[in-house]
């Protein structure tokens, strides 16, 4: 499989959230704000890339009976390391993600890619798969959170949680001179809004798929 295909297939064709319906817990829980979704996406890319690399490196030495426990130990170690680094260097993000940061350990995408790809492929290909799937997961989170944040508050605010946004800023406060934050739909900021948004995106995607298959038949 080509490197570009490994990097891009997670974005659309095999998107972990919208196609495989994996990692739905963080996709629903941390997508009220684009900035926290972006933070979660970056952390998942790191964990997925490193765990895929290490699983691929040790795959030939791990007996079948302890395959899954070994992968879980590797994934848990990387999540703990990333958690420590986040607490030290991005404390606001650490607090905003709360319990969902350690819960990356049980994110199905991570163990799923370790088992279905990294345990059967070479280290470089596994790393690229990790990056590609991580990017696909991040893209899904950003799409969901963009819809939710704009609909719930009329704005997308950056600069509160991630250290690389220097000052708090607001990118969409005014549209055509109207302060859209006055017209926010509060439910989209709540857990129910996450289910509504994901459901609508999945329905649109499925509708497009059915139409495409009908056209080609």
């Amino acid at each position, binding site marked *: 499989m080509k490197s570009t295909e490994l990097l891009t297939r997670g974005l659309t064709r095999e998107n972990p959230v919208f196609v495989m319906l994996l990692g739905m817990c963080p996709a629903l829980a941390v997508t009220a704000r684009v900035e926290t979704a972006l933070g979660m996406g970056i952390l998942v890319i790191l964990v997925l890339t490193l765990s895929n690399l290490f699983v691929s490196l040790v795959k030939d030495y791990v007996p079948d009976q302890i395959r899954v426990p070994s992968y879980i*130990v590797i994934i848990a170690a990387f999540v703990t390391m990333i958690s420590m680094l986040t607490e030290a260097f991005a404390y606001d993000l650490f607090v905003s993600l709360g*319990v969902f940061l350690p819960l990356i350990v049980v994110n199905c995408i991570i163990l799923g890619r370790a088992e279905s790809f990294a345990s059967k492929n070479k280290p470089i290909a596994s790393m690229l798969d990790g990056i590609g799937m991580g990017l696909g997961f991040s893209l899904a989170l950003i799409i969901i959170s963009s819809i939710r944040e704009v609909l719930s508050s009329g704005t997308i605010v950056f600069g509160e949680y991630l250290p690389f946004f220097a000052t708090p800023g607001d990118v969409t406060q005014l549209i055509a001179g109207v302060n859209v934050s006055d017209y926010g739909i509060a439910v989209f900021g709540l857990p129910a809004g996450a289910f509504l948004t994901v459901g609508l995106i999945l329905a649109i995607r499925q509708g497009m798929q059915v139409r495409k298959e009908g056209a080609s038949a």
Partner: protein
Amino acid sequence: MKQKLLTGLTLFLIAAVSGLLLDQVNSLTQPVIIEAREDRILTAYGALFPMLESFEASDVSDGSALTSRVVVFDAQANVLGYIYQVAAVNDHGSIALLVGINAAGVVVDYVELEFNQTPGISAPARKSNYGFTFLSQPIERDYEAIDISIGATRSASTLRDLFAAVSAYHGGSV
């Protein structure tokens, strides 16, 4: 038997390497985390008592939720008040507070150093919602009479217990 030993040894090696990596990352991040935590506490002292000029901190080990007590002074070395650090763990996680009490024994403000409770469900017990129950009130009062039926009963109950622990210590120490 040999196969079982080999399997066990493999799992042990993976765990050992993971542990070593964790140790390295921990030694890198621990000083930064401790320093940042101390900075946040000092910032919180300033937020609780803006006139703070100096303070005397002492550790408390009376077996209660209290971990430290700070006496706060102004520029003329008059006692402005006291700050108590309290922490507790309940079924939903942990709560750690800094409670500021002025020289007259009234709660001036408190800071949530940690509020690791179930996300969403615990929101009614956050300071922005439930704080009025404790703010601007004498620290010595009947805590059993405080209503905790706010939709986040366990978190509210833990908060109430933390303030009660401060009250019990403060009453005996001032």
